């Protein structure tokens, strides 16, 4: 144990909170966490948001972000306690011995400088390499990470490479000064599933070949299972379980870990289409003002009452644009939207109130979908007042009914959105949509900003409500696991076109078209060696072609 390169003992981290209307006070956000990491090993830190995993990751550089303070314990890096180190020592440690890969490479690169300059900067300022040496090492790393044209990609600016490539450049940046430890903070969370696979494989190979130790922070257990040797499960700043990948995935001891492992296992029986469809999208073509490029090309889909149509695709595939056309925010160039037996007017402003009422929308970011200055009661009460003219006690009663339906209960009416958790916020948004008694709710990535367990709860709630209220969902998502859990029929979109459409059982059964196959095989599975088997399959497929 003593020759471990990173040794953390009883780490305590605190912060000062400023609750409105109360005196500021200190709280502990990490309560005495201990672990060891040896050279060449990868430790996965996993937990939901607020679990303290990023905070612990940054503590390995003796850094507290925002108002966070490292209040106790020991962090030993290469045999010295860095919490006791001088500022000068820390300077040589950060970016030299320990480096960091953040979630958003796009926000971390300076857009005005070439990639090469930024990748080599730390190595040169720390005096590890000369400029020429650092650049040749960077090219070597670009090559290892599978970036195209490794000789010249460094001459590009950050906006000239894709998101996945930029994330790999950031990994190169972290590995360039030959660090002993790299902290990966959700490096693939912001990427599409198909891109995520390549980046994961690149990171895994690079870790193995350079022999660094790594902390891999993520909320996705399936991802961490692919790259780590050990896993530590965290909850509210406390360690829940700590063991090898094999033990955590296949034999989790703690209840919380078991819940994380079995997440996304909602069973949903597919319903056969019956009767007249509530929504029928016919030959929809659309483009944004001032462009001459169709973002939607000849879209045809149907949705029956009380059922769910999942629209799946990567970012930029046009799935959110389809929602904008249906809601009338973006009038279509051609085609028709039939809704509840009538043609919808393309322009939202000219639609009768009844059309607006029956077609509700739930957004991805519940944070920005609710006015921060209105109480929950006002947010849910407004549609009641607006569509049904409910007032006073009658309105209060209905608000309480709706709150009960979304499982929030008493005492939430007078709260502001800032006083709710992420899952509760999304529930309030659902209640606001339900208040209008709609026939169709468009759900735009409603679970993708939430932690897996919370997202599961939201999906279960949506399914329950569908049974009770007979409401149809148009469910936009990039997450195929969510689709399996909720859909009756599926439309797979790629570059503005529906490439595959039908009942869930057909769409998710072979034979697949190339794109659906790629999409399906890219969803991380909670088993060891999955990443290698996918990559091996792809290599075989491309060799076969």
């Amino acid at each position, binding site marked *: 144990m003593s020759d471990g390169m990173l040794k953390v003992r009883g780490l305590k981290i605190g912060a000062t909170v400023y609750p409105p209307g109360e005196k500021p006070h200190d709280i502990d956000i990490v309560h005495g966490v201990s672990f060891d990491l040896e050279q060449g090993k990868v430790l996965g830190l996993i937990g939901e948001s607020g679990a303290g995993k990023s905070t612990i990751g940054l503590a390995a550089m003796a850094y507290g972000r925002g108002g966070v303070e490292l209040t106790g314990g020991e962090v030993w890096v290469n045999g010295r306690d860095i919490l006791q180190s001088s500022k000068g020592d820390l300077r040589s440690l950060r970016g030299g011995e320990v480096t960091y890969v953040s979630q958003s490479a796009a926000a971390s690169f300076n857009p005005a400088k070439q990639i090469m300059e930024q990748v080599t900067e730390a190595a040169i300022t720390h005096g590890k390499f000369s400029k020429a040496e650092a650049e040749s090492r960077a090219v070597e790393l670009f090559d290892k990470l599978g970036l195209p044209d490794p000789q010249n990609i460094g001459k590009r600016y950050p906006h000239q490479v894709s998101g996945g490539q930029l994330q790999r450049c950031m990994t190169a940046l972290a590995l360039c000064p030959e660090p002993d430890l790299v902290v990966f903070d959700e490096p693939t969370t912001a990427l599409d599933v198909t891109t995520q696979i390549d980046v994961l494989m690149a990171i895994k190979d690079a870790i193995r070949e350079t022999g660094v130790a790594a902390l891999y922070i993520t909320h996705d257990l399936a991802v961490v299972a692919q790259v780590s040797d050990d896993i530590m499960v965290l909850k509210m700043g406390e360690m829940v379980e700590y063991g090898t990948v094999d033990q955590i995935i296949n034999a989790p001891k703690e209840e919380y870990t078991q819940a994380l492992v079995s997440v996304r296992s909602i069973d949903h029986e597919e319903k056969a289409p019956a009767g007249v469809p509530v929504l029928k999208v016919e030959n929809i073509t659309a483009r944004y003002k001032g462009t001459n490029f169709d973002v939607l090309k000849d879209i045809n889909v149907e949705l029956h009452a009380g059922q769910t149509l999942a629209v799946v695709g990567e970012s930029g595939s046009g799935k959110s644009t389809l929602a904008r056309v249906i809601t009338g925010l973006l009038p279509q160039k051609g085609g028709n939207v039939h809704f509840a037996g009538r043609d919808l007017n393309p322009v*939202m402003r000219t639609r009768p109130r009844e059309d*607006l*009422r029956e077609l509700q929308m739930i957004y991805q970011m519940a*944070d920005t979908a*609710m*006015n*921060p200055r209105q109480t929950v009661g006002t947010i849910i009460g407004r549609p009641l007042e607006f569509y049904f003219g409910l007032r006073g006690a009658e309105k209060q009663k209905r608000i309480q009914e709706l709150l009960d339906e979304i499982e929030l209960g008493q005492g939430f009416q007078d709260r502001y959105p*800032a006083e709710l958790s992420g899952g509760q916020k999304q529930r309030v948004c659902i209640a606001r949509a339900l208040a209008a008694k709609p026939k169709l709710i468009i759900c735009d990535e409603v679970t993708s900003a939430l932690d897996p367990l919370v997202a599961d709860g939201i999906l279960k709630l949506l399914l329950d409500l569908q049974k009770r209220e007979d409401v149809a969902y148009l469910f936009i998502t990039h997450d195929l696991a969510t689709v399996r859990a909720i859909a009756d029929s599926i439309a797979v979109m790629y570059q503005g076109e529906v490439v595959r459409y039908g009942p869930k059982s057909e769409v998710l059964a072979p034979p697949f078209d190339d794109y659906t196959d790629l999409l399906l095989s890219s969803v991380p599975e909670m088993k060891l060696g999955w990443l290698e088997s996918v990559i091996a399959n792809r290599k075989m497929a491309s060799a076969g072609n």
Partner: protein
Amino acid sequence: MMKNIPLTALVGLIITSLYFAAALLASWIAPYGMAEIVGDVWEPSSAEHLLGTDNIGRDLLTRMIYGGQTTIFIATMGTILSFVTGSSLGFLAAVLGGWADQLLSRTVDLIMAIPSLIMALVILAMVPVTVPVLILVMGFLDATRVFRLARSVAVDINVMDYVEAARLRGEGGAWVIFREILPNALSPLVAELGLRFIFMVLFISTLSFLGLGVQPPLADWGGIVKENKDGIVYGIGAALYPAIAIATLAISVNLVADWVLNRTTSLKGGRG
């Protein structure tokens, strides 16, 4: 809420309320009549005349109190006028967008291109200078600044999902402006309110000093400086009292505005 009030805000609040109270109660607390000549020219301070007398022998404390009344009244009305017009037009421009926004914004740019003091001097040279005219001229000229701020804040809020949600619900423009946008634009507007009020005080004082503002015998702080400026040559400080009054009022109003700003931002959660 009141028990958490910080010391700076408390000081600001006390001084500001003193000024406003003095302005409201002027006719009761002023020791003499406003235009009453009660002594010699530029008498030093004494038990009868706490601040001495002015250039024609009127009690300076009385003049200061009545002057404060005029100055604060005009500045307050002007600020209210500029905020009501400026922010409603600014919000309207942001919500309507397109040609309406262009028309309003370019008109405002045009007015702002002319220095407001010169613009005010030109207008006031043409029309009879009365208190309502002063308020209108200053209010509308200042509304351009408020318009710019309100519009830029509202443009950001207008693209939030909750505004889109309100539109999808079928809400009209009034609901969107007053219930969705206004409450969220309040913090920057309140901060600006303190600042603009002080600019109004300075503006009216400047106009009076130049002789185009409040007309004698009515007292106002700028006018008092003008009347007594010659005394400075003889070492008489009568002209300095209005300056001190303007400075302390400016600081204390902004201390209060800062505190209000802090309080309202903490209600907003993350944003702000």
